[in-house]
């Protein structure tokens, strides 16, 4: 006779299967996705917005939006990256709202690039080096790099999201990539 | 219902097909129908039926306050949204709910042209 394993619990299912069930209306499956990915989404929101009271709200809103749009998601296996993109959009909205409120013109804020190569070279491990390198980029470069290299946005989507020309995005990304790789190659 | 009685007394023609005015209803009638529906074997849940735009407008015009009933009366059509227990076959449960609602409405002299039962959950 064939070995019949016990029924698989929801918590043991892949993201893709959970996303499929959620898209069909299975709230319990969606709840597993919420528990599984909340820490990562919070970590991303914290890095993007700073440690703030807004973290709970922005991540909560992300899941609520994700539920509504799940039906349209084709690449269900990569639901985590897709939710991070939703979160990123909401974080940007909040950053823009902060700026409007403070009436500050949007400038490319100069990052502490002085001493960045040395700091990166002394990082305790590759992850730490990558964090330091990213933090040393000018804001616009950092944002583009994260959206493309980490979150998987397309160039056009970045241009639309940031409301800048495509050529600007390409230029920023080109510089960001070279800066990041150069800095990382100094780490050993 | 007094409304129907009045029209008979004044000799006004009763509408042949769809009533031109919503029949008089009372919160008590809807509450009674709700209670009866919940007793139908196989009914596990009763959900709030969304009113159509028209019934919402009518309610405002007549000065009706939002009802606590989960049922919606749309003209002469009663809308009921249920969840079944997953055991009794759902089509049979829908029919039983329709029958029970129609009967209870009649007991309250509420004339319905239709009872629309919508099954939103099975089991």
């Amino acid at each position: 006779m064939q070995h019949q394993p016990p029924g698989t619990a929801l918590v043991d299912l892949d993201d893709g299967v959970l996303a499929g069930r959620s898209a069909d209306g299975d709230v319990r499956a969606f709840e597993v996705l919420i528990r599984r990915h909340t820490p990562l989404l919070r970590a991303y929101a914290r890095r993007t917005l700073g440690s703030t009271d807004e973290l709970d709200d922005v991540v909560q809103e992300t899941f609520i939006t994700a539920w509504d749009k799940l039906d349209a998601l084709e690449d269900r296996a990569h639901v985590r990256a897709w939710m991070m993109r939703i979160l990123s959009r909401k974080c940007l909205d909040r950053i823009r709202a902060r700026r409007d409120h403070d009436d500050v013109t949007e400038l490319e804020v100069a990052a502490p690039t002085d001493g960045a190569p040395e700091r990166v070279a002394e990082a305790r491990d590759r992850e730490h080096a990558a964090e330091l390198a990213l933090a040393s980029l000018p804001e616009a470069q950092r944002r583009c790099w994260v959206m493309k290299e980490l979150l998987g946005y397309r160039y056009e989507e970045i241009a639309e999201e940031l409301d800048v020309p495509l050529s600007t995005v390409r230029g920023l990304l080109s510089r960001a990539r070279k800066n990041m790789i150069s800095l990382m190659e100094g780490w050993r | 219902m007094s409304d129907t009685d009045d029209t008979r007394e004044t000799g006004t023609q009763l509408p042949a097909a769809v009533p031109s005015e919503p029949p008089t209803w009372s919160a008590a009638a809807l509450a009674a129908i709700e209670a009866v529906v919940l007793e139908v074997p196989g009914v596990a849940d009763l959900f709030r039926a969304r009113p159509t735009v028209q019934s919402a407008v009518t309610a405002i015009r007549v000065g009706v306050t939002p009802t606590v009933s989960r049922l919606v009366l749309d003209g002469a059509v009663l809308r009921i949204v249920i969840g079944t227990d997953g055991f009794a076959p759902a089509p049979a449960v829908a029919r039983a709910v329709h029958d029970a609602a129609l009967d209870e409405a009649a007991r309250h002299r509420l004339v319905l042209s239709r009872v629309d039962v919508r099954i939103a959950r099975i089991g």
Partner: protein
Amino acid sequence: MTAGPDPRESDPSVLAALEPEDLDGHSIDELADYLDAGMQPADPSIDDSPACQNALAAIIRLRNASLSALETAAQLEAPADESWIGGVLANISIEARAGRDVPLRAESETERPVMTEGAIRSLVRRAGDAVPGIVVSRCSIEGDVTVFAAPVRVTVEVAIIAGPAIHATAELVRAGVTTALAEQTDLVVEAVDVLVRDLLVEPAAVSEAASGRTRTVDPTDTTDSTAGEADA
């Protein structure tokens, strides 16, 4: 697809320069795009260039390190709080998943019974889940479901425990779903297609594989393999 460059091999001195003249005519951005395209269609001027291969490896290492840093930071975040989760759930509506209204048979003029597509999907999900070794992922109904007695086709995507019983198990799903639909709906079902799209990996198997041990089936495990409950 050609295997990517090994991220562990690199010559750091080659990467100090990242301009096209250093990368056999390719910009770093072209290389990143090539990577994103799965290195298809294959480009020998990149594949055969040591400088390009080193740069590709550096891009991969960097992406991995950055993601890994984020995942490490995630471990420091508190798990989702119950009342906060409640806040999410309170704001999502099943109504959004109701789908089309599927008519049931009306036997009198005062009847107009319908069933939501969402209700039917959850029915299918439950029937499929009842089969051992199976988890339903997505289900869809093709056809003009809003027309009473219009023939429809139901597709059930499943994740299944890998093993020789796949075909038999899929047949159990088909039978279970067919029965459930016949008992609980008035749909005229032309066919139920079962698509095996994912494999389920049991948690025990994953940890054993990671530790290098192979999983042997205990003879006592194979007794009492009850057939799945085909009825919903």
